[in-house]
Structures are given as structure tokens and as C-alpha cells.
């Protein structure tokens, strides 16, 4: 592989076959924007954002259920900050908090345990959203809840796994994938090798620094269909984190899941196993995704069908201050990044 300057020159002057590369992971989307990468590429290389922002793919019914719980007497919903501003069918959790709903932001799921212990008479519900990277933490949290016999902390889950989503978005127009590095830490590069073979498209596992992304894009213009390359070996091994997968599988099992923009996909989610279902406060069946703004095209953005700027609401009614869809809310959302970093 050439040096960084060589890669930059190559990508700027690239005049081969047109390439459409999907950044699957929200953190890749963030890094592409923050480094100004899109404007360093030849017009023949196009980057599109994918479904790898956990908040963005959460359906309205899930948010609505969180809001109902937050409004219930003696109940507090605990969530990561990202989730608060996402609108369900009508309201967001923040709206609910403004009219008396009880919502608490935490930075780590383990804070939820301290909260629950500190107020044993109150019921706490954790909004457990995330991908392969976050689910092991919920597994550890579940283990602690059981070991310490904490009765007043429950989970409302909307957990998802990447492979099915990647299959679902892998339309004919996408010529290659920047494989999500954080997910790879858990699943191992092996998963992407298998997906590459199955889908007949190249996958490159990439780190999150600007130069790592440029190298990965370079590789994606060179790799043959079905080939996979791990350019993030310092964090992603071939087999991944076996222990994290074991603890995940101890508490969770695959299930059908509803994705904003993709609909219901078999085996694309994770739910608490039957023997631990006493920790679940009714996560199944939350599939409805009717959103307030009918013009919102988050679903098309997540699946790479349009760029954020292709949505008629983008930058007009939909801004980070007045988001219509989740993609404009999350700091991993593609609309948010196109807006705040002026990405074209």
C-alpha cells in the first residue's frame, strides 16, 4: 500500500469504475465527516452512511413504550443521552420529562444499578439499545441484577445485530463495505470475511482515524468482490472477543427485530432468554414505526437509498435543534453529521 500522501493522491485522482462504499458504523460516519474525507475523494468514489447508529434504527413503538413507562407512577426510565430527543410516534422522552415523566440519563448501565439500590421502593427501567458492542454490557448488568437480587431494575430491550442489517441494505448499487470496527472487536473479522463471500462484495475492517479510513477506502477500490481485509488488527482479531459473546449468549438469544427503514428482520435482534424474561418489561411486539413527520426519510438514509441532503426536510424543518428523525438527533446519526460538519 502506498504512503498516506500516495493514498490521498490516488483517491483524489481516481478515474476507474464508480465506487459506492457504505460506512456501516455510525462512528465511521462521524469520523468521515470530522476529517472532511468526502471532499478528498474523486467524484467517482461515493460514501454513503449505513444502519450502524443504534438510536437511528430504533422504531417509534419502542420510544412510545419508554414514554408510557416514564409517565407511570413510581417508575423512572434510565437511558443514554442520545435517546432522549428521538421522537416516537408523537413525543420524545425529553418531552415526557418536561410534563412530569421521570427520565434519568446515565453514562454507563452500571449507574442504573446504583440508582436502583439507592431507591429500592422505586421501579427503574433501563432503555437497553445497542449492537453487538453494547449487548455484553447489558449481559453483565443482568448478571449483577440476578446475583445481587435487585428486584426493581428491569430492561426494555431493542438490541440489534449487524449481519442481517448488512444483508438487508446490500443492494446492487453498493460496491463495498467499510466494516464496523467496534462490532468487529466482538464478532471478529471472520464475520466480515463470511459476509463478503456471501454477498460477493469486498469488506474492509477499518479503524476510526482519518488515515485509517483513507487506507480502507483505498483498499476497497482495489479488492475483488467477495474479498475481505482486516486493516484494524490492533483491535479486531480474527475470532473476536469470545468471552463477550459467551456472556451475551448466556443471557440473550436471537429474535426477530424491527428496524427503522428496514422493517422486521428475522434473527436480527437479541432478547433476554426465556429463563431471564423476568428482567424484561415487555420488549416484544414493539414493531410499529409510524412517525410524526410523514416527510421524514430517515429510513431511506439509513439504508443508503438517499443521502441526508436528498431528504426534503433536511436543514429546513429538520435540524439538530428541531430534529424530525433519529438520524438528526444522534451524534452517530448521518443527518446530524452532514448538517453540523457541512458534508456534501
Amino acid at each position: 500500500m502506498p504512503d498516506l500522501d500516495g493514498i490521498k493522491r490516488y483517491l483524489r485522482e481516481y478515474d476507474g469504475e464508480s465506487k459506492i462504499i457504505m460506512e456501516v458504523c455510525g462512528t465511521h460516519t462521524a469520523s468521515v465527516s470530522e476529517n472532511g474525507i468526502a471532499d478528498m475523494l474523486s467524484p467517482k468514489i461515493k460514501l454513503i452512511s449505513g444502519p450502524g447508529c443504534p438510536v437511528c434504527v430504533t422504531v417509534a413503538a419502542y420510544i412510545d413504550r419508554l414514554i408510557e413507562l416514564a409517565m407511570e407512577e413510581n417508575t423512572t426510565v434510565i437511558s443514554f443521552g442520545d435517546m432522549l430527543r428521538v421522537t416516537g410516534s408523537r413525543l420524545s422522552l425529553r418531552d415526557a420529562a418536561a410534563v412530569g415523566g421521570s427520565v434519568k440519563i446515565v453514562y454507563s448501565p452500571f449507574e442504573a444499578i446504583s440508582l436502583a439500590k439507592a431507591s429500592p421502593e422505586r421501579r427503574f427501567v433501563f432503555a437497553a439499545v445497542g449492537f453487538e458492542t453494547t449487548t455484553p454490557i447489558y449481559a453483565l448488568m443482568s448478571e449483577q441484577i440476578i446475583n445481587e437480587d435487585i428486584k426493581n431494575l428491569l430492561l426494555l430491550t431493542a438490541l440489534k445485530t449487524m449481519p442481517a442489517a448488512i444483508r438487508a441494505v446490500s443492494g446492487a448499487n453498493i460496491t463495498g463495505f467499510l466494516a464496523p470496527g467496534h462490532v468487529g472487536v466482538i464478532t471478529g473479522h471472520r464475520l466480515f470475511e463470511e459476509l463478503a463471500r456471501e454477498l460477493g462484495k469486498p469488506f474492509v475492517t477499518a479503524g476510526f482515524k482519518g488515515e485509517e479510513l483513507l487506507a480502507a477506502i483505498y483498499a476497497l477500490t482495489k479488492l475483488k468482490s467477495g474479498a475481505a481485509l482486516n486493516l484494524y488488527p490492533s483491535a479486531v482479531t480474527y475470532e473476536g472477543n469470545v468471552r463477550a459473546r459467551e456472556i451475551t449468549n448466556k443471557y440473550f438469544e436471537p429474535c426477530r427485530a424491527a428496524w427503522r427503514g428496514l422493517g422486521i428482520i428475522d434473527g436480527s435482534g437479541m432478547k433476554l432468554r426465556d429463563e431471564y424474561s423476568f428482567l424484561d418489561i415487555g420488549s416484544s411486539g414493539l414493531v410499529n414505526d409510524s412517525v410524526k413527520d410523514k416527510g421524514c426519510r430517515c429510513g431511506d438514509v439509513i439504508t443508503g437509498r438517499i443521502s441526508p441532503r436528498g431528504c426534503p426536510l433536511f436543514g429546513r424543518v429538520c435540524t439538530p435543534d428541531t430534529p424530525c428523525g433519529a438520524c438528526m438527533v444522534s451524534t452517530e446519526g448521518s443527518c446530524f453529521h452532514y448538517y453540523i460538519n457541512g458534508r456534501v
Partner: protein
Amino acid sequence: MKITMAHGSGGRATSQLINDVFKNANSNPVLDMMEDAAVVAGSGRIAVTTDSFVITPLFFKGGDIGRLAVCGTVNDLLMRGAIPKYITSAYIIEEGADTDDLRRIAESMAETAREAGVIVVAGDTKVTEGSGNVYINTTGVGFVPEDTDIKSSDCKLGDALIVSGDLGEHHAAIMSRRMGIENNIKSDCAPLGEMVMNMIDAGIELHAMRDITRGGLGTVLNELASASGCGFELNEADIPVTPEVEGFARILGLNIMHMGNEGKLAAVVAERDAERALGIIKNSRYGAAAAIIGRVTGGEGVVMNTRLGGKRVITELFGEGLPRIC
């Protein structure tokens, strides 16, 4: 001792609290008169500013709410080129607060006031129901030297943009504390009088100045750009930030450009004075890591040349700057 509603009654318990905690730490001839209003000397153009301070936790690496309450107000005066002279301090204390904590806060405030060259001339204490929190409002008064007129709307094409040191430290320190993350990041909370006065004394053509607090440099620059009808072009490689804060921000998905400081300023100076101003800041207390990071352009908004060689737009902060999932 714990604060109770009696400490807010206006009676004996109140005066005891004031005498023990607040007057002791801030003793000076004006305050010690304990009159209903302070009468102070001064002439010329007067700068006035007020700010309320609400922070969890009250004590953090590199400072506390007392130091913060002085720095925030003093720095606001300085940004208009005013020489800070007097501040007031009003405490709203929730029941259950600890008098030892209050004493530490008052002492820290007094020490910071001494450093900043201001005296506390008036104060107030109220007690309210709650859970032991403390809120402080300070109002500052300063005097503006005759030929000095520094304002947000005066940025001019070609001006140099200087920041006085590493970005994001206060924000990262507070967030680390709240999240229980162990690291060595300290708040940069500091009064910036020395560097500002040295620049003014040296006759630097200062067009605009802002302290970089909530909302971070990105928000400050967008406000300056819109007030002056200009744009800014920045070079990411020149922006000072410690590897520790940069790493912290990366892990949490925070943007350095939107992280607050409490002891840093952005100065827009005439291009011919840029190097001289930089030298003065670097030689002043709290300015060692200062750098020229960009310039004023004819466009609009703030554009950054990234370290990698791309371009990105820097907006003001949207939302609260919360960490992401994952």
C-alpha cells in the same frame, strides 16, 4: 455542621453563617461595613456583567464552584477590555449543605479574587429546601481604559485568531468526575487578567475577545462570525489540545470544538500584531500553550482545514453535547 432552613431565616443563625463563613474569607473595608449597599470609587466607562454558577460536583480537579464564580465573571469583564475591580457574591444554599464545604468554597473564592485583583464588596445568602446543593451568582464591575473598545462585531478580514491554550479541559474534567473515570485531566478554571492586561498595555490591536466557555470554541467563533459578518478559517493541526483530552473526547464521541473551558480565551487581533500578541499570551500565566489557529475570512461561518487535508464546517453546539451510546 449542616445548613438548615434556620440559616436562611434572616435571624441569628443567618448572621452567624455570614460572619463565620463568608465575611471571614472575604474581609475588606467595604464588605466589613455590612451596609445595605457597597459604595465604591471609580470613574470613566464602567463594564458590568453578571453570571450564575450551577455545577455538579461542587469540587473538582483544578477548581470548585467558588473559583469558577470569580473566574467566569472576571473573564467576562476582561473580554471587553475592562479592568475588573469589584464583584458581588450571592449564594443560594439548599438545606443539608455542609458548612465546611461552604467555608472551602468561600476561601477558594477569596483566594481567586485576590489573584484576579478584585474585591468582594457585597454579598447575600439565601437558604432553600433541597438536597445540599449550592448555587452562586456573581456580578462584576470593571473599568474600561480610555482608548479600549473591544467587541464581537469588530473582527476584520485578515485578522489572526489566537486561542490562549488547550481546549476542552474544564468540560473533560467535569465529565470525568461525573462518570467516575479516573484520569489526570484538570479543569483549567482561571482568571485571565494577566494576559489581557499585558496585551492592552503593549498596545496590541485587539478587535474582539471571548472567553471559551459553554458551547466551546465552535460556538464562540460562530457568534463572532455572525456579529461581525465575517467567516473564520481554522487549521486543525494548530489547535492546541492535550492528548489526554483528545482521547477522552474521541472515546465519548464529544467534539473538542464544542467542549467548554473556564480559563481560555479566543482573541481576534490585527494580523501585524499577531506574533507579538501570541508571545505576550505565551509569557503570561495560563497562556503557555497558546497558538494562532486561523484567520478571519470574507465568507461566512467557520470552516476548518482538517489535519488529514479535508475541509469541514464547524457549527455552534446543538443540544447538550451528551456522550453517545456504544
